[in-house]
Each structure stands twice: as C-alpha cells, then as structure tokens.
C-alpha cells in the first residue's frame, strides 16, 4: 500500500494496492541480501513455464538486485511496467525481468485508439543488447495465455509494423503466469533467509484476498476436531481422572479398581449420522459414537 500511494496517488486502485502489498516489501530489502534467493524464485518460474535458460544463467548467483515498482523505462514519454527486476553480478547487469500484473478482471492490454499493445511497448523499451538477458512475465488469471497468444497473432498479422524488435525472440522470452502458479512456486522454492517471512506472508495474503490456495486434497476439508474425534479414541465421558481411592484431609486411602471402562458407551444417533451415512461402516471400523469436542469439561 505504501508504494502504491506514493507512486499512484491517494486512491491507488485495487490492482496497484495488491502489487504494492506483495512486491513493495522486496524493494525495501538491501539488494545484496535477497538477490540470490529472488533469482532462484525467478529461475524456478521461468523453468516451470518452459523457457529455455542458458547454462550461464542457470548457474548464476547474482549478488545484487534492484526492485522497482512502476519505473518509467521509456526514453521518451511514459512506459511503466508494474514491476522491474534487475539482477547484478559485481555491478554488472546479468538479467532483468519485466512483470506486468493483472488482478481480477484487469486485461486491457491494447490501446484501442493507437492499436498498441502494453506488453509489446514494454519490451520495445528494453535496450536491444539487454533483450538477450531479459524475460517478460504476465502475472494474472488463466486468460493470460490467450491474451499473449492473441497479441502475438495480431502483431504478426498487422499491416503496419508498430514494433522494431524480433517478435519470435520475444515470444520465446514471454510467459503467462497465474496467481495460482505463483503461489505454488513460492511454496516450492526453499527460502531460508530474508525472503522466508515475505514468502509466507504473500502466500497467506493471496489466500485471504484472492482465495488463492494451493491444492492439498480433501482430507483437510473436514474440520480438524472432527477428524481427531474420529481417528483417536477420545470420548466425551472418558476424561475422568483414574479412580485411585478416597481422600480424608491430607491423606489418600488408596483403593484400586480393576475396571476402567468408559461410563457412557452407548450408540447414539444424531450428529454422527451426518458424518457417516452407513452404520455398517462405523461398526466395522469401531468408530466411537459419542464424540464431542475434546475441550468439553465434565
């Protein structure tokens, strides 16, 4: 939010707020601290998206990174990608990544008046020699792949050549990334150091704001307390302290009982039925019929 307000004004809009919330903290870290971890994340994304990575880039360990939100990268006029990452090794630029971010329905990629594409304009602003080191990511929903495919098709078919770069080369260096994939790759990439807390918070942020949650199966969909009650032998009337004898003043007269059965062990209908429709299954698996929350006090 901080950078969204600083760069985009008092009312920055949801997309800019999300961009700032997620990537803003990266721009506040010293570049030397996070360069390697951030590069490992980017490398994972690029490889997962099927981009060809040279052996040099693969083995790279950058020791500097500059993270810029909405920088103006045009020589003349304005061209502001949402995020621009520049990786350095001993002060020499070794790779850069432009990331265009769309949240929810943001997919207005073409200026209808001029017929120019936002992504193509961004790529054009990169120096020709730097293009060999650069990558382009469109981070948004599933429509991203179609957006890029349609854009490439129209640019190739256009009668007027608006762009002075090799479109085929660009096509091999641009990829659509969904928020789901971003969250998944974040989770997969091991981050031990400075980025770990950022990563954990971003995953939670995406979960809470966009419902973006990495698939983990349906066994966790049933509330844990129900599972616990099913899979363990907890019963409602089972938590009595074991009977040891009678107390008289400070003295305990021990009196052991050989029996330690639960007091209420009868089958009941009701709540249980909504968990397990088939009574035969419960008999077979010997599930307890009388479970309630484990924190019930008697």
């Amino acid at each position, binding site marked *: 939010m901080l950078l969204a307000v600083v760069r985009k004004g008092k009312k920055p809009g949801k997309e800019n707020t999300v961009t700032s919330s997620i990537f803003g903290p990266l721009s506040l870290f010293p570049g030397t601290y996070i360069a390697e971890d951030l590069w490992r994340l980017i490398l994972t994304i690029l490889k997962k998206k*099927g981009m060809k990575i040279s052996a040099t880039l693969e083995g790279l360990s950058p020791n500097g990174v500059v993270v810029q939100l909405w920088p103006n990268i045009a020589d003349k006029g304005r061209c502001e990608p949402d995020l621009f990452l520049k990786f350095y090794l001993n002060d020499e630029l070794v790779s850069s990544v432009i990331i265009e971010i769309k949240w929810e329905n943001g997919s207005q990629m073409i200026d209808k008046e001029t017929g120019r594409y936002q992504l193509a304009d961004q790529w054009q602003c990169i120096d020709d020699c730097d293009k060999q080191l650069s990558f382009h990511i469109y981070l948004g929903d*599933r429509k991203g*792949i*179609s957006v890029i*495919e349609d854009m490439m098709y129209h640019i190739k078919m256009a009668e007027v050549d608006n762009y002075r770069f090799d479109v085929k080369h660009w096509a091999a260096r641009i990829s659509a990334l*969904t928020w*789901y*994939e971003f969250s998944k790759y974040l989770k997969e990439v091991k981050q031990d150091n400075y980025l770990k807390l950022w990563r954990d918070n971003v995953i939670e942020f995406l979960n809470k704001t966009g*419902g973006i*949650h*990495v*698939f*983990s*199966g*349906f*066994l*966790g*969909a*049933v*509330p844990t307390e*129900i599972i616990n009650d099913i899979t363990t032998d907890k019963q409602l009337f089972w938590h009595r302290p074991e009977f040891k004898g009678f107390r008289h003043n400070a003295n305990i007269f021990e009196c052991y009982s050989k029996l330690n059965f639960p007091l209420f062990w009868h089958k009941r*209908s*009701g*709540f249980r039925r*909504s968990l397990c*429709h*088939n009574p035969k299954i419960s008999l077979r698996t010997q599930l307890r019929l009388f479970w309630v929350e484990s924190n019930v006090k008697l």
Partner: protein
Amino acid sequence: MVTEREAGTSIFNASLVIAKTAKEIEAMMEELQDTLQSSLGEEGLVKLNVGIKLSDEEEAYRNDPMNWLCQAYLYQYKLIKNGRSPFGYLGIQVCLGDEDLHAVGIDEAVVHVMFAESEWGVDQFGLPPMAMVDTCGSTLHVHLEADKLWRLIWESEESDPETAWVFSVPLAGLNTVDDLKNQIVHPVAALLKDTPVDQALSKGDKIMRFSGDAESCRRIIAE
C-alpha cells in the same frame, strides 16, 4: 432424536466443510487443468500450452431447491488440436451429493469425468444415466463397459451417431497431483487415444465400479 446442540453443531460443521471443500475444489481444478494441459499436450492430443481452454459458455450447475447450496458444478473445457476450433469437450462435474446419487448406492461426493464431441453432450450426465428418446426422435443409448465407463450414444435420423463417455471418481480420493494424474489425466489421455477401456482405466484404482444398466445401475463397493 438428536439434541439441540448436536443438531446445531452438525449444521455448523457441515457449512464449514462445504466452504473448505469449495476452496479445495477450485485449487484442484487449477492443478487439474495444468496437468491435463501438459500431459495431453506432450502426447500430441491437444495443442501445446493452449490446447485446453475453459469454455466461455454459461455456467452449468445444480442447486438445491431453495438455492442455498450448489450441489453440482460443471467445468467445461474445449479440447483444441489444430487451429482454433475444438474437436471435443471435456466436462468435469463435481457433484457434492444429491438424492439421485443415493439411489444408485453412492453416499459420497463424486467427480464425473466426461467427454463428448459437442458441448451440449457434457452437461447432460448424472447418475443413474438416463437412456431416452427426445421429442425430435433422437435416441440416447447408454451402456456400461468394464464396470467403469458409461458409453452414451446419440442416434438421430438427421446426423451420424455421436458418442460420449463418462467415468466417476470419489472426490475425497483426489488428494495429490498423482491422484489427479492416475485417476483422471492418464485415463482421459488413454481413452482419447482409443485404448481399450480396461487398459485405459487400469491405473485408476479409485474409479467407481458399477453393475447393471441405465435403469438398474448400482455402485459396486469393493470389500
């Protein structure tokens, strides 16, 4: 009789379970689309990267009569191999539960995996499968193959017969990416390649088995 507290807890928990399940279903569908795309793309069954697209037609779903709960939802995908026109449609219907399922011996949430050449073909399926003759004189035949796959054949005087197939998997049996591959993706790929049904579904050990036909359909539960 249940106690008031038991009834209240039951409703409360059911609502929590549905909400969590819905979130997991959405995540599962993201994962499934990616896995289908990469697997079918690599096998040349659909275009690489862009061969599976969520259909932009209207949503297909079934609510309870009071509109409180979405009992079944259909994800429809276009399968594209060449150009921009689909050669078929894949339907993934997530059915959380209804009386019809109960009638065929199913008491758990299921996923129906369907393929048809036309879009309308994938939004018609439910259990028990219905053989019928419609008002235009078209006939729908249904039969079961290898205890697992329902084959649906539409015959009409006006056009060539169209076939579709469906198999079903318990939703709660899909908990990992490997489950998605073994129970859905590999069987779909094999069936699209016209592999014999018993071979195509051999890895899908969780795929539901049935006995009978359209009218006498019952689920077979392995002991």
